[in-house]
C-alpha cells in the first residue's frame, strides 16, 4: 500500500484534485491511500458530493493561497501555510510522493527548502516523457524520457552526467527498460561544435563505465522522436523549449484536424483514420502521462500542468505509486553513490 500526498489548492482548484483522489480511493487495484492538502473547509464541502472511500483519504489543512505573480521566496514568506509547503512537509514525514499542479518554479523552490537532496545530486531535474515511433522495454512503451525540462537552466558537465544516471534509473525501473540508451541533446553531430559544458559532459559520458545505461552519444532534436535514445539529457532551458514546442504541435495538429471537418470528403477521410488518430491523440495527450517527475530529492515529486483535469491528476497518482513501488529514489541514490566512488563526483554546483 502506497500513500500519496496531493495538492488540492493548485491548478483548476479542489474539485479536480478531489475527483482524482476520490477515484483513486475507490480503485481497489490501485491500493493507494491519499493525503489531500488544501483549504479544509472547501475540501469538506466538495467531498460530500463526490463518491469516495474516506478510509483511504485524509485531509491536511493548508489555508494559504499561492499568488503566482509573486516570486517563489515572497510566496514562501507571505503564505507559509500553502498547500505545496505543507504538502511537502507531510510527504517528507510519511516518506510519500508529493503531487501538485502548482507553479513549477515555486514547487522547485519549496522542494529545495524543505526536502533533502539525494546524496550525489548537485541539482534536481524535471523529466518528461515524449512519444516516439520506436518501442522500448518489456512493455514496448513508445516513450522516451527527456530531462531536464526546466529545473536547471545551466547545468555543469557533472550535473548533466548525474541527470543521465537519474534518467537511466527512472527509465529502467518505470519503463522496465533494463539498460536504456542515453543520449545528449545537441545542435551538432560533432562534439567540438558544442558549447564547452556540453563537450565536457559528452567526454565524461563517453568515458563512463556503468551497467546502468548505454551511452548513445549526441542526438539532434529531429531524431528524438524517432527512437534514437531512450533517455535524452539536456539543460532545463532547451528542455523546456522542446516540451512546449511538442505541446504546441499537438494542439496545432488537433486544430488542423478540426479544420478538416469542414469538407465532406475530408470528413470521410478523417473518419476512416479515426482509430489511428485516436491512438495518436492518446500518445500526444499529456494528461495520460501522469506528470513530470522531479528527480534528485529524497521523495518522489510529480509536477503536473496547472490546467490538469482529474484524469491527469489520477494518472499522476498512478505514476507516483509506480515510482514508489519500483524504488526509483533509492535506485538513484545508489547509482549516484557509485558514480561518486568512480571519481565522477559533484562539483558542488548548487543550481
Amino acid at each position: 500500500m502506497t500513500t500519496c500526498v496531493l495538492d488540492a489548492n493548485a491548478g483548476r482548484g479542489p474539485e479536480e484534485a478531489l475527483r482524482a483522489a476520490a477515484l483513486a480511493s475507490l480503485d481497489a487495484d490501485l491500493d493507494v491511500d491519499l493525503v489531500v492538502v488544501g483549504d479544509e473547509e472547501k475540501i469538506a464541502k466538495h467531498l460530500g458530493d463526490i463518491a469516495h472511500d474516506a478510509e483511504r483519504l485524509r485531509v491536511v489543512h493548508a489555508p494559504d493561497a499561492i499568488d503566482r505573480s509573486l516570486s517563489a521566496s515572497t510566496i514562501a514568506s507571505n503564505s507559509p501555510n500553502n498547500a505545496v509547503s505543507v504538502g511537502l512537509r507531510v510527504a517528507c514525514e510519511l516518506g510519500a510522493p508529493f503531487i501538485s499542479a502548482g507553479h513549477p518554479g515555486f514547487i522547485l523552490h519549496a522542494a529545495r527548502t524543505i526536502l533533502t537532496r539525494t546524496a550525489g545530486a548537485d541539482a534536481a531535474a524535471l523529466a518528461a516523457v515524449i512519444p516516439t515511433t520506436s518501442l522500448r522495454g518489456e512493455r514496448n512503451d513508445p516513450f522516451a524520457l527527456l530531462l531536464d525540462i526546466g529545473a536547471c537552466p545551466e547545468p555543469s558537465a557533472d550535473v548533466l552526467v548525474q541527470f543521465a544516471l537519474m534518467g537511466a534509473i527512472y527509465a529502467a525501473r518505470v519503463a522496465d527498460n533494463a539498460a536504456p540508451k542515453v543520449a545528449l541533446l545537441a545542435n551538432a553531430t560533432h562534439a567540438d561544435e558544442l558549447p564547452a559544458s556540453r563537450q565536457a559532459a559528452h567526454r565524461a559520458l563517453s568515458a563512463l563505465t556503468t551497467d546502468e545505461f548505454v551511452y548513445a552519444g549526441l542526438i539532434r532534436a529531429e531524431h528524438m522522436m524517432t527512437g534514437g535514445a531512450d533517455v535524452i539529457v539536456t539543460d532545463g532551458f532547451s528542455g523546456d523549449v522542446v516540451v512546449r514546442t511538442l505541446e504546441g504541435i499537438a494542439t496545432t495538429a488537433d486544430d488542423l484536424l478540426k479544420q478538416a471537418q469542414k469538407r465532406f470528403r475530408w470528413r470521410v477521410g478523417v473518419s476512416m483514420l479515426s482509430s489511428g488518430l485516436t491512438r495518436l491523440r492518446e500518445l500526444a495527450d499529456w494528461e495520460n502521462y501522469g506528470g513530470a517527475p522531479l528527480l534528485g530529492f529524497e521523495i518522489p515529486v510529480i509536477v503536473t500542468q496547472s490546467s490538469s483535469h482529474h484524469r491527469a491528476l489520477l494518472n499522476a497518482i498512478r505514476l507516483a505509486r509506480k515510482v514508489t513501488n519500483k524504488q526509483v529514489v533509492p535506485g538513484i541514490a545508489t547509482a549516484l553513490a557509485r558514480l561518486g566512488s568512480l571519481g565522477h563526483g559533484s562539483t558542488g554546483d548548487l543550481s
Partner: protein
Amino acid sequence: MDKTYIRTEFDTIADLLRTFRQRPEDKQTIPGARALLRELLNDKNDGTRRKIMFISGSPRQMRRVLTEKLRLDGIEPDSFVLKPNLSNLLLMRFSAIRSQVGYKLPTLLRSRLVNPQTTEFLFGDDSEQDGFVYSLYADLVEGRLPPAALPNIMSACGVSSREIDAAGNLAGPLVHTVRKPLRARVRRIFIHLERRSPTARFAAYGARVVPVYNYFQAALMLQVDDAMDADAVVRVADAMGRGGYSPFRLANSVQDIVRRGYVPADHIAKVLRDIGEARVHLGMTPSRFILDFAKALATIQLPTPSPVPWLEEIDYVALASDRKYKPPRFQVPRISLLD
C-alpha cells in the same frame, strides 16, 4: 439490522449464484460488525440485553445459511424476517421483488406494534433505500408524519396499492396524538456505505441518519449517544484491526466522521484519554493495533465543523426519486507506462 452485517453481493447473476452456494462459514462478516453488535446487545445503562431483529431483502431461501452464520458469530436474533421473493415471483408481483419500501416499512411497523414503547437503532446500507425507509418509519412512529401522508409517499416510490394499504393499516394504530421529540423512538439510523455513495445523499434526512464507512464510526457515534462505553469502543477498534484495517485507515475514518459534523473533535480527545487511562489506571495492556491507532489519531488533524442538524420536517415525496444509488461508470484510459 439487515444484510449489511455480512458481505453479500447481489449485483450480478453470478454474484447471486455464488451467494446462494456459500456455506455459513464462508460468509464474511464486515469487519467490526460482530464486535459492534455484541457490544450493542448489552445495554450499558441497566445491564439488560437489547433485542436484535434482522430484516433483510435477501430471499427466504437464504434463511438457513444466514441464521447459521449469525449463530457461528455468537448472535441469536430475536426475530428474523426475509423477503418472500419466490412467492412474489409466483404471484407475479414483480414490483414487490424490487421494492424495498413496500417490504421493509410494513415489517418495521409490524414489529413496533408488538413493542410500541421500544427505542431502536437501525442499521442499513446504501445499496437500496434504507436511509429513506428507516427515516420515514422513524417520522411515522414519532408522530412527525401522519399516516395519511403515506399513500402519496409510497406511490411516489412505485409501491403497489396492496403494500400501501398494508402499511397504512399498520401505521394507523401507531399514531401518537402527542408528537414525540426526535430520538424518542428511533435514536439513530446507521447507513453502511457499502457502495461508497456520496455522503451528501443523506443530508436531507438530518442528523438521525448517519452514513458510516465502517462500524467503528458507528461505535463512536453510539458512544456520543451514550449507548456504548469507552471499553466497548476500544474493543470494536481492536476488532477492526483483526479484520485487516490499518491504524492509518481507521484514523482517516475518524477524521471523516468528525469532518462531517457527527462526532465532535473533543470527543476523540476523550477516546484517546480513555485508551491512555485504561493502560495506566486499570493495568490493561492495549493491543499493538490500539497503540498504533492511538498514535495515528493523536497526529491527525480534526476539524470543528458545525454539527449536523436534526430535521423536524423531511419532504419524502421529493426524496422518493433519489433512492437507489448507482455508482458512476468512469474509465480513465490507461497507458502501460503507469501500471
